[in-house]
Each structure stands twice: as C-alpha cells, then as structure tokens.
C-alpha cells in the first residue's frame, strides 16, 4: 500500500485547489443568494430558492458530467479542473447560503430593532450588527462543510481531473488487481488532509467566538 502514497500525493495539489477554490466561490456567492432569499421581490426570492434547491438536490457527480460534457456539446472547452471548481463552487454556494441563513436567523430580533432604532439603514444593520454575529454562528457549520467538500472533490475524477481519487483510479488500472491497497493509500491521504483541517477549524472557532466579531468594532 505504501508505495502508492508517493504517486497519489501528486494529486494533493489538485484536490486542495478544487476544494478551496470551490469553497471560496461558495463563501462569496452564498452572500447574494441569502440576500436574494429575503428580497421584497417574489421573483428574486423564487430564483434564490430554486438555485439552492437545485444545487443541493443534484448529486455532484451528475452535475459535473452535465456541466463538462454539456459545455463541450456547445463547443465550450474548459479544463476538467475549471469545470470541477465551478461546478462544485455552485453547489458550495447553495450550501453556504443555507448556512448563512441559519446564522442570520440565530441573531435575536432585538438586535435588528436596536440597530434600526439607532437610525441605521438596512445595509448598515447587516454589515455592522447582524453580519458579524451571524458570521460567528455560521463558522462551525461552514468549517464542517469544507471538510465535506474536500471529500466531495473526489467526484472531479469522473471528468478526468487528476486529483487524489483520479490518480488513484489510474494507479488501480495499471496495477489491475491491487484496488484495495490503492484506495487505502488514497484514504490515508484524505485523512492526512482533513484531520489538520478539522483541528484548524476547531481552533479558529474558539478564537472567533472570543475575538474577531468584537475586533470588527465601531
């Protein structure tokens, strides 16, 4: 098993790239979606809800197939890495929007009222008062999600991305009989990545709850 770890480690870069680039898309794109969900316009609300439900409902593997080969049909050529990042990024946005929404709902109504009573406009209320509090509540589920996304990035192998699972599949075909060892090695590499990530998340959570929200200050 151990001699597979070397080759498989070559996939680490791609796995991390897909994971964090998709996550970044999700973190950013999740914000307009959660804002759209509470829009005064019904059409906008419906669009946001549809987005969330569609991208939470379609399995990543199917969605990447559709995106990659669908675009190819339209003569749009993108690399499998780009397709994986964008495809998983949209799914991440749907999940992050829901995580943000839960975070916002956890902020007591009195906070909105106190901020409005001080003459703050909607944008100020969210940016200075509600946002920072929602962010702290959103952090633990968001950190859990990034670990899930690390594993989910394995689906990029179906469109040929050479990330950990993609490399492992190649190794398995070469070796033909040694499937078990290859995937034990791949699993060990995934664990080696997700365990420190979980550790960092736990540390950041404690640190955040104590500091960051307050440091945003006046």
């Amino acid at each position, binding site marked *: 098993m151990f001699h597979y770890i070397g080759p498989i480690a070559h996939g680490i870069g791609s796995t991390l790239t897909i994971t964090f680039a998709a996550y970044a898309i999700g973190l950013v794109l999740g914000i307009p979606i959660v804002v759209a969900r509470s829009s005064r316009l019904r059409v906008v609300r419906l669009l946001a809800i549809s987005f969330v439900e569609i991208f939470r409902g379609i399995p990543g593997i199917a969605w990447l197939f559709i995106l990659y080969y669908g675009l190819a049909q339209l003569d749009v050529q993108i690399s499998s890495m780009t397709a994986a990042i964008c495809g998983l990024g949209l799914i991440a946005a749907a999940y992050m929007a829901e995580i943000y929404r839960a975070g916002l709902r956890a902020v*007591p109504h*009195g*906070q909105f*009222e*106190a*901020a*409005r*009573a*001080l*003459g*703050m*406009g*909607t944008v*100020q209320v969210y940016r*200075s*008062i509600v946002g*920072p*509090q929602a962010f*702290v509540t959103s952090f633990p589920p968001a950190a859990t999600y990034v670990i899930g996304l690390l594993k989910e990035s394995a689906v990029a192998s179906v469109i040929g991305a050479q990330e950990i699972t993609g490399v492992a599949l190649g190794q398995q075909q070469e070796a033909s009989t040694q499937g078990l060892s290859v995937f034990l090695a791949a699993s060990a590499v995934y664990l080696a990545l997700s365990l420190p990530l979980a550790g960092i998340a736990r540390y950041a959570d404690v640190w955040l709850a104590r500091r960051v*929200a*307050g440091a*945003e*200050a*006046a």
Partner: protein
Amino acid sequence: MESLDDSPAAPSAPADAATGAPVVSGPLVAEAAAMASAAGIPRVQVEQLGMRFGTHDAVIGVDLEVAVGEVVAVIGPSGSGRSTMLRCINHLESPTSGRVLIDGTAIADPGGREPGPRELAALRRQVGMVFQSFNLFPHLTAIENVMIAQVKVLGRTKAEARTRAMQLLERVGIAEKADSRPRRCSGGQQQRIAIARALALEPKLMLFDEPTSALDPELGLEVLAVMRELAKEGMTMIVVTHEMHFAEDVADRVIFMADGRIVEEGTAQQVIRHPREERTRKFLRAVLDR
C-alpha cells in the same frame, strides 16, 4: 451636562408649560423649549393611532401629545398596547391607522405620505429607545456599543465618538466597564450602557419600554436613578413602566392604558392617587396593594 438649579423636580413643571411660561432648565434645554413653544409644536403628536395585528387590535384610537421637556409615564397591564404604541412612535411598528409626528414631521402616516427609508432613518436618529431586554450588541464592548451609531450614522470620527462615548459612560456611572463586553456586565449596567448608546445620537426624545422589568429590584434602582437625572436635565421622555414610585416622582403626566385605549390621564397625583375610572382603580389595587 447642564443640571437644574431653580426648577422643581417634576410634577409642578407641566403647570408652567401649560400656562405657556417657558420652564427654566439648563441653558440648552431652555433654548430648545423656548424655540419649540414659540413655534407651538409639541415634540410628539400621536393622532388616532391604531395598530391591528391580524384580527387583534393592539392600539385603538390613541391621541397623545408630549411637550418639549415633558416626561410622560404610561402605566397599565401588560398587553394593554403600551409597548406597541411606544414602538409606533419611532416606527419600529408600522401603525395601521392614525399619525405620529415628531416636531411636526410625520414619522408614521399610513393614510398619507409615509417617510422613505432614508427619511425614516433620519427621523429615528432623533428618537432614542431603551428596550426591556437591553438589546446591546454582544460582539461589541460597552464603549463600542455607544460609539457605533455615532460613527456609522452620524459620521463622527472614531476619536470623537470615543470621547463622547466615554463622557456618556461616565454620566451613567459605568466608565470602568468601558472595555467589557455586555455579557460581563450586570443587568443594571447593561441597561445603563443601553441608555448611553441611545443618548449618543443626542436625541430629542427618549422612549423607554419597561426599562426595569427585566432587572432585579436593586439593579432597577440604578437605572431609575439615571432616568431621573435625564428627566431633571429636561429630556423629553415617554416611559412605559410598572414603577409607580418613579411615575409619581418623575412623570409630569401619567397615562393609564388598558385594552389598547387610553383610559385615563392626568398628573401622577390624579391618576395614581385619585383615579376616576374603575378600570384604573382595579389595576392600581393590583399594583399598589400587594
């Protein structure tokens, strides 16, 4: 901070206001009062205010005028519409009928022209509000709580805001807690921070929604002491409260509400000591004779 030297604390002051003689208080307050009384515009006018939640009428046809510098206590059973009425005055609730005017400008006017979001925010800046549950911002320290609206709403620099916030915290007696988070403060301290936060925008009017109801009796006293000071300095205040002693000592006028209506109003002496209405008597027996 100007304090009174020659004007008696409370109940006799409105008599002066009623006769049109300017009440002498601190220089700034006196000036403001003189200007407003010259213009003849009350600080707050509530006209035929109605608030309906679904099929329930929380407030029915309430008329109320509050003069500049006047302190009005609103007493009555919980659920009588007192808080709802108060919340309509700074438009935290949108009334379903009637009008609310601050210095003659409509802040709520469902039948006519309602202020837009910007205008509403500008009007709210002139009205400070103190909540039963304090609603301090937990992610900010005490002083940041008092600074934030100054910076974000008034556009003051952080340095200016900090100086002003520190003065206010000193004034409400909790300068030593300036750098503490709200959760590290007692309820009484939190409510005093909340008062400082509201005062930071230099409001023309302060609304208090059961400011001591969530507090231990002793901690409530700290808060009431700050409110007494404010009243003495000539702040216009509407106080929804169950604190009868405070109402008697501080309020120029007491209003008794029940079932969404004003049942009785007058001086504290009249309403609390010599109520005319049976409904008022029943309530006061429950409060005073326990």
